[in-house]
């Protein structure tokens, strides 16, 4: 499993945040709900710039965050920060189901699995702390730092990855400075993805002992350290001269600039003040390339989607599976894709298509599980005793440019099937609050970036997506709960893929409460002098520090 060569062929990954957040940010919403950031796809990770070219050291990459920072605290920050601090702190390794056959080792250099629940990591020697004024000596990080970080994550109620640790009773042990052992209380399919997530950061234990506030400062053993943090404007990271994998990083540093207005961002790109732009859609991306031939267009699958979700606890008519099915049949995903994504997206099932292996085939979804059929929808409503149609209440967050565009499409599709909608637009914060507390009859829902099928499946189980009954109580069906549990606990990849698909088919047979609409692409534009920009590998991009500027 170990792949020591990985660091040699050098890496970088764009760290675009969720499309939804981007569009939300354009209207001024500065709040993130992304746990992990990024969207990308293809197995191997496309690279911009030939590998034959010799990398030039120096220069600063000008990156953009379309939402204001919520801090760079690796344990607590959940939005823009998740794109920055993974470059400052190490993880044991980096792994994602979005690029399943690639694992990038970092603080660990080897992994052994003596049994189903035990993971033994060999710590890499001489992963040295960056110079800092935060009270951590420039020493090598070891298993004790990993232990301190994970124990801390477990103890902080709001920590990013604490929930998983608690849910699976994960225990950690530093057998000696160079051996770190992780144990789960039963087989758990996504342990490596969890440990390998960019938010599972390891900080020097001195920070934890001294209670250092890492919200606006930070340094670790990874390629960069935080030099400046100006809320609402810029976070600058500089090269860590002690980085273990010399001569990386090539960059002198990266500036993450906050530009919340799309028009301004576009102006900044065209005037070369920033090197990165996330286009609204493929048409804009192509348009920009036509206009400025030195821009390079990179198209990446996204890992997020918008859903329509029903809550039978508030609106009992959703208890009737015929009504749920009628609503499902009323949704015309093709129309959504054509009018909102300008044709540049694919319908999503329970698991979105960009998780290629785990998603059900598109034909199966379209023909069998979520076909668009107005007549059937009307027929189902008649059978359920509503020959004149039904009226539903729908909550949605506003302003959210994405959602704002979904609403008229959905309303007209529902209307065509005899479903009248009473709209409940609420501001984003209120929406999140009510959504959490299951205080909605139905809602349009913005989802996070999901790079494993775990959470998409969990939306349908009795304890809901985060395991405490928040958001939804799912189908309340023991069979579904068991099938999802099986999918999440099958270690063998081939069998797990089958289990995930079986769970989806079962969920469809029960007429799910949550209907995902479609998943699109990120349309990235870079100036052509940005080299080694990795795409198509999800958040794994953040594991690569070999980007360089050819100018």
């Amino acid at each position: 499993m170990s792949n020591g060569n990985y660091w040699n062929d050098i890496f970088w990954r764009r760290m675009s945040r969720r499309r939804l957040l981007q569009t939300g940010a354009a209207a001024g919403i500065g709040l993130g709900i992304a746990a992990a950031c990024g969207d990308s796809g293809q197995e191997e990770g496309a690279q911009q710039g030939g590998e034959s070219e010799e990398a030039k050291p120096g220069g600063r990459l000008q990156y953009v965050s379309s939402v204001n920072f919520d801090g760079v605290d690796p344990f607590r920050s959940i939005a823009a920060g998740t794109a920055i601090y993974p470059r400052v702190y190490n993880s044991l390794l980096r792994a994602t189901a979005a690029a399943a056959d690639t694992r990038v080792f970092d603080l660990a250099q080897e992994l052994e699995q003596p049994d189903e629940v035990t993971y033994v990591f060999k710590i890499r020697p001489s992963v040295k702390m960056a110079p800092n004024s935060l009270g951590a000596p420039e020493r090598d990080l070891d298993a004790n730092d990993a232990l301190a970080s994970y124990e801390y994550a477990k103890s902080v109620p709001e920590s990013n990855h604490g929930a998983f640790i608690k849910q699976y009773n994960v225990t950690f042990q530093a057998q000696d400075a160079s051996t770190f052992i992780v144990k789960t209380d039963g087989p758990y399919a996504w342990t490596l993805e969890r440990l390998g997530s960019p938010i599972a950061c390891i900080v020097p234990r001195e920070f934890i002992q001294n209670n250092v506030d890492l919200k606006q400062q930070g340094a670790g053993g990874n390629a960069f350290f935080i030099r400046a943090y100006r809320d609402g404007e810029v976070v600058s990271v500089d090269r860590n001269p002690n980085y273990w994998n010399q001569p990386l990083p090539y960059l002198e540093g990266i500036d993450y600039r906050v530009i919340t207005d799309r028009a301004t961002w576009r102006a900044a790109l065209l005037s070369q003040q920033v090197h990165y732009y996330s286009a609204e859609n493929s048409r804009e991306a192509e348009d920009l390339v036509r206009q400025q031939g030195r821009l390079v267009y990179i198209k990446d699958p996204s890992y997020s989607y918008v859903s329509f979700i029903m809550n039978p606890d508030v609106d009992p008519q959703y208890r009737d599976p015929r009504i749920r099915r009628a609503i499902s049949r009323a949704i015309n995903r093709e129309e959504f894709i054509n009018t909102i994504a300008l044709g540049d997206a694919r319908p999503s099932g329970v698991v979105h298509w960009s998780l290629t292996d785990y998603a059900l085939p598109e034909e199966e979804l379209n023909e069998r599980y979520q076909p668009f059929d107005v007549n059937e929808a009307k027929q189902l409503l008649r059978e359920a005793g509503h020959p004149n149609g039904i009226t539903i209440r729908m909550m949605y967050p506003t302003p959210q440019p994405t959602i704002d565009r979904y609403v008229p499409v959905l309303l007209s599709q529902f209307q065509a099937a005899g479903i009248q909608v009473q709209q409940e637009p609420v501001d984003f914060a209120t929406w999140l609050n009510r959504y959490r507390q299951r205080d909605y009859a139905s809602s349009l829902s913005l989802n996070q970036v999901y790079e494993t099928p775990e959470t998409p499946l969990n939306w349908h189980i009795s304890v809901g997506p985060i395991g405490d009954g928040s958001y939804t109580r799912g189908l309340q069906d023991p069979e579904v709960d068991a099938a999802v549990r099986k999918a999440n606990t099958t270690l063998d990849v081939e069998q797990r893929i089958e289990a995930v698909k079986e769970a989806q088919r079962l969920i469809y047979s029960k007429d799910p409460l949550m209907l995902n609409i479609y998943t699109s692409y990120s349309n990235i534009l870079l100036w052509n002098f940005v080299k080694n920009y990795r795409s198509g590998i999800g958040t794994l991009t953040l594991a690569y520090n070999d980007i360089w500027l050819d100018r």
Partner: protein
Amino acid sequence: MASSDTVLIPELGAAAVPRGRGRGRRVLSLVRKQPLGVFGLAVILVLAVAGLAAPWLAPYEVNDIGAGQPLEGMSWAHPFGTDSSGRDMLSRVIYGARISLAVGFLSVIGGTAIATAIGIFSGYVGGWVDNVIQRVADTLIAFPALIFLLILVTVLGPSMRNVILVIGIGIIPGVSRVVRGAVLSEKQNQYVEAARALGASTPRILFRHLLPNVAALAIVIMTTLLGTAILAEASLSFLGLGIPPPNPSWGADVNAARNSFPIHIPWAFFPGAAISLTVLGFNFLGDALRDLFDPRLRGR
């Protein structure tokens, strides 16, 4: 003050106290003397008719996403093009007149009514009551209007009713200040003295004597404020706290267009032009009314 970042207040000094005399002018001479005012009135009338008759005038349903392909240019089928959802922009602009005018009129009429009441009361009663009211008004007048509105909208939540409410509240301090000024100078007039000497009660003096004389002023202010209110709605929409979609608000449509790429000129241009034209109309009309009501500015 196109920027609602500045203050929601009519131009104070110019709003001198109007007299209730000499209003019987002929239409023809009006056109000759106040061409811009008549133009403004015409614009407003056209928009009002468009808004009222929207269901008959608009070629498509306002949220008909099947009206055309996304981002169509100008054509006979879609004179103003379509937006990114394929909705017909001409229809949205026509329906938008409803919303903009409704927001404008309801917020301004409501706000001015309350402000006039407060202004008359404050000015007539005087003393410490007046002092307290004026100090609070001082602060609210100069409080950055947009931030004030944003706090209120955030508290109340985004909806058309709340946008109207919030803009209405926003104009109260400024207008009440102007009305109070007018009352103070009216109070010196003999007719008030006379009424008081004759033993008229305070409410009677307020409503029978002061109100009619202040009303003309209020109308002038209202006309100018209508434009300001429509811009305020557009600004709120720009920040995403205006009237929630899919309502066809001009401000929201401009904002959706300026946030959507590739840049599609018709989508952004027409609702933007509608905003500007409406505000322009109200401003011209307001100027003309002021000249008409204020004999001191007349004819010179």
